[in-house]
């Protein structure tokens, strides 16, 4: 009797255990699925806004910074039409440039950043605070060319890079005016309100850079800056032949990492952020992720630097032209183009042949959790009944 009771209890326990186990497994699976899904950004196009704000020959490195990133985002697949490049000075053609028509970002002079196909959207005196704000909020004259506009939508991931001379909560433009941290934050708020972006990766390399993103309040923005408040950003090295510093430290290490990845890379943002150490940058880079719902360790770098735009091959729906011109004279439209057949009624019908299927069979709605509960209850009840009988 006792033995029977125990075996009964045991079996009940086993069953419940099994059931709860399976439901737990399902939950785990569900969670896992959620994680996997969250690594996939839901953007469909990538844009880059690259801005150097300072003029003058001695700010060569700012132009080199921005051109380096231009080259990188292009290499990783963002087309020129989706890159807005604001270049405040033409250092390549500066008379002081010992190598006219070139810009280098390294003293080895391996890569001429100004080599070929540089499309500058805003140059020289066009690089103003007003134009930058207009670019972000897309408030322009009616005749403003499309190539100079940021035509993003709610599926766009935007990478924004700024470099120049800045201070606490401002960035100088052209040595003449400055953009404030509030201006930038409000511009992003307007972009968010108008659904002009899916996610923004904001990167700024300037003195006291971190102050520039402190006032952001719109969601889905991840921001990095090169230095804390009251801290300078430093240049990396000089080219003794050109006679100027050619790149800033923060940008140098950003590029050094980005050079390692290609279009299909699975590298995530946190790997890039790991490069931003004090030893490398010589200042304290800042990273702000509180507005960003995804975990940066799940965010691919290519979500911002690459481009999802893949071409589509051979997915054509045929015969549109033919059908549209059907009413025109038939000689011009050789019927051979249309892959149709004649039906019994003597008319041309489409090859689309949707067949009817009796779908009386209802799909079983899977409700694992409730089912588990019911099973548990039934088992327990049966167990109790058996126990009573046994007694």
């Amino acid at each position, binding site marked *: 009797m006792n033995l029977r009771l125990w075996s009964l209890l045991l079996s009940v326990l086993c069953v419940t255990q099994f059931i709860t186990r399976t439901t737990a497994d399902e939950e785990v699976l569900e969670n896992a699925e959620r994680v996997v899904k969250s690594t996939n950004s839901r953007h469909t196009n990538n844009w880059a806004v690259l801005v150097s704000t300072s003029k003058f020959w001695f700010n060569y490195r700012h132009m080199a910074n921005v051109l380096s990133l231009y080259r990188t985002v292009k290499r990783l697949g963002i087309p020129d039409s989706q890159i807005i490049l604001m270049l405040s000075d033409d250092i390549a053609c500066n008379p*002081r440039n010992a190598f006219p028509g070139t810009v280098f970002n390294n003293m080895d002079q391996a890569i001429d950043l100004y080599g070929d196909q540089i499309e500058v959207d805003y140059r020289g005196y066009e690089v103003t605070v007003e134009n930058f704000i207009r670019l972000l909020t897309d408030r322009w004259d009616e005749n403003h060319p499309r190539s100079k506009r940021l035509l993003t939508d709610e599926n766009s991931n935007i990478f924004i890079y700024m470099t120049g001379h800045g201070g606490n909560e401002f960035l100088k433009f052209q040595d003449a005016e400055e953009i404030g941290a509030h201006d930038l934050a409000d511009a992003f708020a307007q972009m968010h309100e108008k659904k002009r972006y899916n996610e923004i990766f904001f990167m700024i390399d300037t003195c006291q850079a971190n102050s520039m993103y402190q006032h952001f309040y719109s969601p889905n923005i991840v921001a990095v800056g090169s230095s804390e408040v009251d801290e300078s950003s430093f240049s990396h090295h000089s080219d003794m032949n050109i*006679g100027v510093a050619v790149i800033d430290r923060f940008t140098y290490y950003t590029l050094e990492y980005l050079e390692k990845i290609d279009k299909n890379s699975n590298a995530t943002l946190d790997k890039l952020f790991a490069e931003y150490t004090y030893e490398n940058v010589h200042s304290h880079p800042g990273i702000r992720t509180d507005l960003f719902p995804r975990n940066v360790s799940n965010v691919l770098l290519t979500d911002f630097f690459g481009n999802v735009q893949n071409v589509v091959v051979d997915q054509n729906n045929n015969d549109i032209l033919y059908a549209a011109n059907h009413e025109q004279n038939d000689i011009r439209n050789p019927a051979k183009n249309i892959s149709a057949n004649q039906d019994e009624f003597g008319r041309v019908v489409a090859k689309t042949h949707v067949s009817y299927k009796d779908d009386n069979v209802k799909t079983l709605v899977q409700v694992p959790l409730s089912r588990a509960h019911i099973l548990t209850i039934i088992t327990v009840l049966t167990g109790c009944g058996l126990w009573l009988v046994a007694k």
Partner: protein
Amino acid sequence: MALAETVLRKVHKLGLVPKLIKLIPLISFLFALASVSWLLVLPMDGFYRDTYISENALMPAQATSYFRESEWNHVRGFRTALQGIEDKAIPERNQIVEGWLQQYGLKTAYHKNNRGDDTLYAIMHAPRGEDTEAIVLTAPWSTSEGSYNVGGIATAVALLRYFKKMSIWSKNIILVLPEDGHVALRSWVEAYHTSLDETAGSIEAALVIEYGSASDHFDFYEVVYEGLNGQLPNLDLMNTINLIGYHENIGYSIQGTTRDELQKRTYSTRLRTLLKGILNLALVGLKKKTPGNEAFSGWQIQAVTVRAKGVDGPSDVTQFGRIIDSTFRSVNNLLEKFHQSFFFYLMLSPDNFVSIGTYLPAAVLLAVAYVLSSLGCLVINEVQAKFIAQSAYKILTIFIFVELGCLMLAKTLPLFVLGSDDDESVAALILYGFTVLTFASFVLSIKNQWIPKKYRMDKSLTFCLIALALFLISLLLTALLIVNFALAFLIGLAALPLTFIQPLVTTSNLKLLSESPKEKRKDLLSYLVNDGNSKRLKIGLCLLVSSPFFIIYIIGNLFVDESKGALILMKGLLTSWDELQCWTWFIVILGWFSAWSTVALSCIFGDFEIDSVESKMKKE
């Protein structure tokens, strides 16, 4: 309010005001003392600043200079050729150099100044530049030491040849080869801005180079930076050259620092550099050995002279060239005129300086000392305001008379020197004349009882005149202390004895009252023991010491390392306006000398003895 009232009452009760009035001369002297101590404190740690590059655009020593081995051969070649033509006259030499320059594609031209040989200059237009700005490289045929600037000219020509090959220039480059760094260069600079046909835009900076030996090596280099009328090149330019020298590992000297003390940074070296700097800045344009950079003053051109020192040492001539090259590249990087950093500063060492805000109080204190002493002159001697109002006419007449006399001297004396063939002896004659005048007033001020009573001025008028003279000096100091601190400070210091005269006069009067009057002894000792007489002597000495011409003697013989220093200084003073537009002569003669003359006149013709009536009243 109550507190102020009680304080005022206390002041009244204790009779502080009359006590303070009595103390004015002492206070004035303390101010002067404070002024000097202020300057002495500056070289102490914590009071000066380290130099730094303020203009981001300069980027000194960031570019590699390729003025190296292969260019050395060119320097040698030019130098050998130049050595061969040392005996030829300058026009002939110019022709040869012109040939070289034209061979390298430079545009050459001459400036005819009507005093000596023509000045050859060459322009290298920057092929990709805007053609609106220029940098000048000057190599005078003879250095300030008077030697043949063979190394300098060889380097300069080689540099131009090397510059021509580079495509980095945003500014034009001008090479000037004047006869010397004095009148010839100055007249070229003036002509460049007024009459020359071939120009190349506004000159941003100028370097004058002196390499007076044919040696491949030199020891260290010296930079001379004082400009005319208190002007200095922008500190950024100085620092740029210093930094470049540091990177080339060459010793850098300013204010004649010797080889052994180049690296020394002690209180005494800093003080010496500071004082030498002040003296040199005050005397700029007056000496015979002009380095040339001061020729560019007045046109907003930052100019320095770079001088190679020593004939053997660790550095070679291409390094000298690289200093010039790197400096030119830095200036070339500029986008605006020099505007960062300081235009008014005093160097303590190549790496340390004090800016105007820090050193200016020294001159201000000095000016205050004069104002106080001028006030004291009137207050202590109880000159009534009514009296001043009444005799203002008289005072002004005397003063204007003196000033007009000085003006006449100021305008005519230089003419004598410039008009004569033997200008040195004319200058000497003028100096002797003034010396005689100075001594005459010294003697007369001691023995002013020789002047008949009827020519005597009364006491109040005398003090008014002294007060006015002192006030004039303080005005002069105030006006000068910003633009030409060195000159202001020097004059203020040299004329300081003038402030002692009034207290001496006043105290001697009081002493005379207590003594039995008219007691005379014949021997010198008793003459000196007599307080009144010793005071008289002191007054005379004060007058003598504070005379501009006495100071010229002192400075000329002690601080100018040229023979017949005083004479040269005098000649420099007389000619510097016409030749260099240096206004020191006018300041000395119209400001200092006129004030001095006024005081001297007061001492000679003043009546310091108490009127019998007055003394009687006092006794009662």
